[in-house]
């Protein structure tokens, strides 16, 4: 049970994730005749040893989502997760909505 045997093995497991929360907005009553498409936006922030000074990547995800839809966005789901790594990690925001245009 030497540590040098474990090290290469364990490096393979440095790829875990944690889904912190999933928020679901209200669903509008969209009629079947209305054109409706799914739009998705994803942004992320790399953090080294906890040194991070803003949460602007969240606002960027909203801007990206809105940029894809000129109409109304309903059924918006927001997922916040983190991917773990060696001495650093990546926070991720994923937003998805139904775009109703027309």
């Amino acid at each position, binding site marked *: 049970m030497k540590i040098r045997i474990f090290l290469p093995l364990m490096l393979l497991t440095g790829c875990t994730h944690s889904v*912190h*929360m999933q928020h679901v*907005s*209200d669903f509008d009553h969209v009629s079947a005749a209305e054109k409706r498409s799914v739009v998705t936006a994803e942004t992320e922030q790399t953090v080294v040893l906890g*040194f991070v000074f803003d949460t602007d990547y*969240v606002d960027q995800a909203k801007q990206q989502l809105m940029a894809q839809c000129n*109409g109304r966005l309903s059924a918006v789901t927001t997922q916040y997760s983190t991917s773990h790594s060696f001495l650093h990690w990546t926070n991720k925001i994923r937003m998805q909505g139904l775009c109703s245009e027309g």
Partner: protein
Amino acid sequence: MFKRFMTMAVLMTALTGCVSLNSVSLTQIPAERSNEISATSSSWTFLGIAFSNDFVDEAILDLKSQCAGGKVEGILTKFQHTVFIPVVIREVVATGYCHKG
């Protein structure tokens, strides 16, 4: 070695005011997005020990007051912590769109 490294990491982090996101939510976004409004409320705590969460209501009341008689939609709400050990600042940031008429 590991303990010394972790102690250094903790000390360095304590001095720099790092931010961590706790939760985020986004409500339905309207087609009309010309009037953006924003509200922030925060609360200082010692070692993160808090006795009330009433500061959250301040953000909601602020948003309401900026859109009197209208409807606020597309609200992006962030709840985050900023740490300056031993002080922890809890903060709610809400941004939305006000539609009147």
